[in-house]
Each structure stands twice: as structure tokens, then as C-alpha cells.
């Protein structure tokens, strides 16, 4: 039964001892000793409160932490369940914490979780980030119930976020995924997902675990694979997403490269799926939506626009080759605008992203150079949004994102036409 190649012998033994489970909750980690205890306790409480009769396993798939993350997971527990529960849990919750094998990355951590879920014949799985500070027991209910009780295969998260947060998601990933595949999944790379055992098995059957998916881009890969293969999709409102401050050394252009290249790679794989799609439709949404108080997010649009203009001065030839003379002239015109008058038109931004997707498809530049050259344009677009949304309420800012999504949908024909052109015509 247990034929997973990525699991160690001791993990095999633990899994075999458990036998089977209804719910598997996976927590990938790497040096998260400070935060993972809260996550494990929230998951335990969620399982105890909402699924007291279901057999559940918490799986910590660790990337070789040196700060004792796995020890924290093994020892984390809720001292007194009676303080949070009205009745006692019937089934015990098993826990497995192990270092995963394979290429270092979140994708490899997830692969081990999927393998354990398959072996335990889990009906529902959840994955949550290990650096979450805002996770509550309700997250488990909201991510598991649509799978266990309503027959959904994939549940994406829906958060309330500060209007300036999630700029890569808001300006690229969400509009692009929505226009391509026709489903309005608001947080396609949210990081906290629920899915059925059937989908976990399907993911394992894909030959991607030695590719970049194992290192980065697993979130968008999971969402897109589920949508493109016709699985039933839903989303659940989880409230605010607050997590550990991101690594200050993390490079924006590397982040952009990882997310956008994963998106573009999937466009290659599912060209036959997204090409005929027109418009988009909402996906069922679970959970009671409420307003969340969000912390102020400091931004420096002057710095962003400075980098945009540096890009315009230095990357002229590269941008001209990717965008073409017409759109490049429009970008050039933006460079001459004063900071307070700066506005990146949404139609132009849509064509920029589509032009980059086409350039990626036609191999115009090495992928990393190509996508990293998008960084100044992305900063220009982000600064433009921040300036426009400075005095807006959250709902108004969301309406701006909705307009952008519509523009992506309306301009999709341009992408389809250019995509289909023979590669030789592009040189």
C-alpha cells in the first residue's frame, strides 16, 4: 500500500500505525519555531471543535529547520480543551513531523503531505502556512467542510487584506488567472487551501515534482491545476491574513519571477483549456464576511516611480522588443509624468502582461531575464494604484481591481491571437 518514494522508513512506520484518516492537515515549515505552535494549536482546536468524530492527522513537512520547529510541533498542545469546547473530542488527533526529501522547496513539502494523505485514504486535506498569526480554529472548518459535506474538490482562501497588500496577486495573478480560466478565485496563491483526497491523488499523478513546481509556485500550480482539470472549486472567507514579516532580504524581482514564471508555465500546459474561455463566473463562497481592522502599511511611491524611470532609461531595448513600438511609446509617455499625476492605464497594463506572456511563450529572452525586466513596470503599476487608492475605502479599492480584471477579460482576444502566431513570425 505504502509505495511513496519520498517518505523515510520511520514516516512509513508512523503512517502505517495510523492506518487511515478522514482529514489530513499539512503544515510545511522551515525555521518557524516562533509561530508554528500557534498554528498547530489552532488546527487541533479546529479539528476538535468542528470534526470531533473524524479521524485526523496533523502532518508537519519540514525543510530541515535548525531552530527546533519539529520539536515545537511534537510538543504543541492545548492544555485544557474544556476551555474552548462544549463537548469532548471522540477521536484522538495523530501528529507526524518529519523532514521531507527531494528538491528543497514548498512543493516538495506538499508532495510528502499529498503522499501521506493518499496512503491514509484521506477524504479531505488542508494545508496552512506555518507563519500564520491570524489562523483560528474556524479556518479548519471553512476549508474542510465544503469538501467533506458539499462535495467540493478545492477550496481557496478568501481574506480581507489591506488595500496595498497582495499587489502581485491583485495586479497580475488574480486578473490573469480569472481571465484565462474563467473562475473568480480571488486569492489563487493564498497559501492556505482545502482539497479532497481525490485531488491530492491527482496532484501526485502529475510529473512535476522534479521541476520548478517542487521549489516554488506550488500555490498557483495547485489552484490552476484544479481549475483547468474541471474539479469543483469554492472559496472560503477566513478573515484577515496576518503572518510573520516577510524576509527583509527577499528580493522583489525574484518573487515576481517565481510567481509569474509559474503562471506562464501553466499557460503553456493548459493553452488548449484557456484559449476558448470567454468572460468569467464567480465561484461559490463559504463563510460569513465581516470587516476586519487592518494595520497601516507604509509605502514609498517616490522610490517605486524612481525605479520605474530607471527601467525606462536602461531597459529601453528589452521593453521595445517585448511590448512593440506602440505600447512602448505609451510607457515612455508615463515616464515624463510628475509623481502626483502618474497613472498607469489599466488597458496598457493588461497588454504589458499579455506581451510578457507572449514573449515567454516565444522564448524571446531567457525566462529569468524576461520576467525580472518586468519589475520596474510592475512598480510603476503598483505606484499608480497606490496613488489612485490612497483615499479609497477597501471596497472602492476592490472595485478598481474588478475594473482591471474586466480589462484583462476584454483584451484576452489579443493574447489568443498573438499566442497562436507561429514562433518564426516573431523574430
Amino acid at each position, binding site marked *: 500500500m505504502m509505495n511513496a518514494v519520498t517518505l523515510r522508513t520511520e514516516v512509513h512506520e508512523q503512517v502505517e500505525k495510523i492506518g487511515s484518516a478522514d482529514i489530513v492537515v499539512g503544515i510545511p515549515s522551515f525555521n518557524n519555531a516562533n509561530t508554528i505552535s500557534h498554528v498547530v494549536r489552532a488546527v487541533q482546536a479546529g479539528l476538535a471543535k468542528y470534526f470531533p468524530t473524524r479521524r485526523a492527522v496533523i502532518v508537519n513537512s519540514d525543510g530541515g529547520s535548525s531552530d527546533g520547529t519539529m520539536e515545537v510541533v511534537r510538543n504543541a498542545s492545548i492544555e485544557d480543551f474544556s476551555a474552548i469546547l462544549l463537548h469532548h473530542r471522540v477521536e484522538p488527533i495523530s501528529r507526524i513531523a518529519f523532514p521531507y526529501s527531494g528538491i528543497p522547496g514548498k512543493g516538495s513539502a506538499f508532495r510528502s503531505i499529498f503522499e501521506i494523505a493518499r496512503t491514509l485514504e484521506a477524504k479531505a486535506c488542508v494545508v496552512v502556512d506555518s507563519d500564520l498569526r491570524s489562523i483560528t480554529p474556524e479556518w479548519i472548518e471553512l476549508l474542510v467542510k465544503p469538501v467533506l459535506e458539499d462535495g467540493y474538490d478545492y477550496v481557496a482562501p478568501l481574506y480581507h*487584506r489591506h488595500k*496595498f*497588500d*497582495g*499587489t*502581485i*496577486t491583485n495586479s497580475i495573478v488574480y486578473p490573469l488567472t480569472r481571465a484565462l480560466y474563467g473562475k473568480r478565485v480571488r486569492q489563487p*496563491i493564498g497559501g492556505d487551501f482545502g482539497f479532497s483526497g481525490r485531488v491530492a491523488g491527482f496532484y501526485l499523478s502529475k510529473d512535476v515534482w522534479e521541476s520548478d513546481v517542487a521549489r516554488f509556485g506550488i500555490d498557483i500550480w495547485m489552484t490552476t491545476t484544479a481549475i483547468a482539470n474541471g474539479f469543483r472549486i469554492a472559496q472560503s472567507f477566513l478573515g484577515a491574513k496576518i503572518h510573520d*514579516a*516577510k524576509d527583509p532580504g527577499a*528580493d*522583489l*524581482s525574484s*518573487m*515576481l519571477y517565481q*510567481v509569474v514564471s509559474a503562471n506562464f508555465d501553466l499557460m503553456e500546459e493548459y493553452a488548449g483549456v484557456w484559449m476558448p474561455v470567454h468572460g468569467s463566473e464567480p465561484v461559490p463562497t463559504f463563510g460569513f464576511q465581516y470587516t476586519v481592522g487592518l494595520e497601516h*502599511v*507604509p*509605502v*514609498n511611491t*517616490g*522610490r*517605486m516611480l*524612481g*525605479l520605474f524611470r*530607471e*527601467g525606462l*532609461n*536602461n*531597459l529601453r531595448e*528589452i521593453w521595445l522588443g517585448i511590448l512593440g513600438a506602440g505600447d512602448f511609446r505609451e510607457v515612455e509617455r508615463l515616464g515624463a509624468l510628475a509623481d502626483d499625476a502618474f497613472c498607469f492605464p489599466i488597458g496598457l497594463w493588461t497588454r504589458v502582461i499579455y506581451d510578457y506572456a507572449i514573449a515567454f511563450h*516565444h*522564448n*524571446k*529572452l*531567457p525566462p*529569468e*531575464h524576461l520576467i*525580472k*525586466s518586468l*519589475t*520596474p513596470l510592475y512598480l510603476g503599476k*503598483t505606484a499608480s494604484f497606490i496613488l489612485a487608492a490612497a483615499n479609497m475605502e477597501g471596497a472602492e479599492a476592490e472595485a478598481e481591481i474588478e475594473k482591471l480584471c474586466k480589462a484583462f477579460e476584454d483584451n484576452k482576444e489579443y493574447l489568443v491571437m498573438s499566442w497562436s502566431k507561429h*514562433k*518564426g513570425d516573431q*523574430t
Partner: protein
Amino acid sequence: MMDFLNLIFEPLQAVFQTFRVFLPNFLAMLVIMLLGILVAWLIKFIVVKSLHAVHFDSWSDRMGFTALIRKGDVWSRPSAMLGSITFWFLIILTLMIGLGALKIPAIDSLVEQVVGYMPRAFSAAVILIVGYVVAGFVSQGVLIAAVNSGYHYAKLIAGALRILLMVLILAMAMEQLQIAPSIVLAAFSIIFGGIVAALSISFGVGGIEAARRMIERETAEKPDAGKAKDEIDPL
């Protein structure tokens, strides 16, 4: 009378004798050439098909090799160009072997020299092509990284790096071709050292004002950058 006739026929006989010896060699050369052309054509066909199979043209587009050959006014696809290079290389090789079959000492010596030089010429060509692609790749990567890091002189840095790499690659290729190696080495040292010295002098003495402006420009914006850091979570 007989002596006179002998005087006439002996050279003719000698010529005929030489021709009898030469004719099989000449026929052998023709056969070698004919077979060589056929084999060269066949290998060209295999090379082009193999390059198509591994998407060499797309790779060349990405690495800037296509742009390089376009600058040289070559408008065929890189795979077709490499196929043609292979074809003509094999034709030259066939010609050398064919001429060798004639067994003429002067030609043999020439062929030996040319064949002996071929590996060096081939290595130099490979160094130049690979070097050009690598220099383009590295300088483009540096340009993009420098722009994304906010350096004002990104293009200058990337351009200077590209020139330095090309100088290094040219020196390596010429060293491989054994063209006045000591002069090449000396020239390379002078140019490389000269660039470094020129930069030091221009920054230290001649371009002190320009250097000051550049340094001031780089440092001037740092306090502003620190004043309001972005704390956006982009994902």
C-alpha cells in the same frame, strides 16, 4: 633517326607514364569528393533535424545568438546556418582528403598544414561563439539586476562588463589561433590593465567632479529610501 625519334617519344612516354600513375589517383580523388559531398549533405540533414528536435532555434533566440547572426546580415535560422557550416566544413575536409589522394608532395604538405591548423581554428570559433553568448547573457543579467536595485549607471556597468568579457574572449581566441601569442598576451594585459588604470585616474584625478556627482547621486537618495520603507506584502 631512331635516336631522334627516341628523343621525341621518351618525354611523351614519361608524360604518359606519369599520367598512368596519376589517373587512378585522380579518379580516387573524384570518388572521394563525390562520396564526401553525399556524406556532407547527409550529415547536414541530420544536424539540422537534430537541432530542430532540441529546439535550438528557440534557445538561440533567447541567448541572443540569432540577434548576433542578424547583425552579420545572415537571415537564415541558426539551425540552418549551423547545418551549412557543418556542410562546408565537411566539404573542405573532403577536398583535403581528395587532394591527398593525388599523392603530390607539395599538396600533401599544404594539406597537412591546413588539417593540423583546423582543430585550433575550430576551438577559436567555439570560444568566440560561446563567449559572445555568455558575455551577452551576463551583461543582460547584470543590467536588469542593477536596474531593479536602483543603480543609476546600470547600462554603463553592464556595457563595461560586456566589453571586458569580449576583450578576454578575443584574447583567448587569438591565443588559441597562435597568432603572435606573446603580443596578444601583452596587448591583453595592457588593455585590461589600462582600463583599470584609466578608471582609477579618471575617478581619482581627471574626472573627480564627475565621480563626485556620481557618488553624490547614488548616496543622495538613500536617506529618502530609508525614510519611508515599503512594507507591502506583494503576494
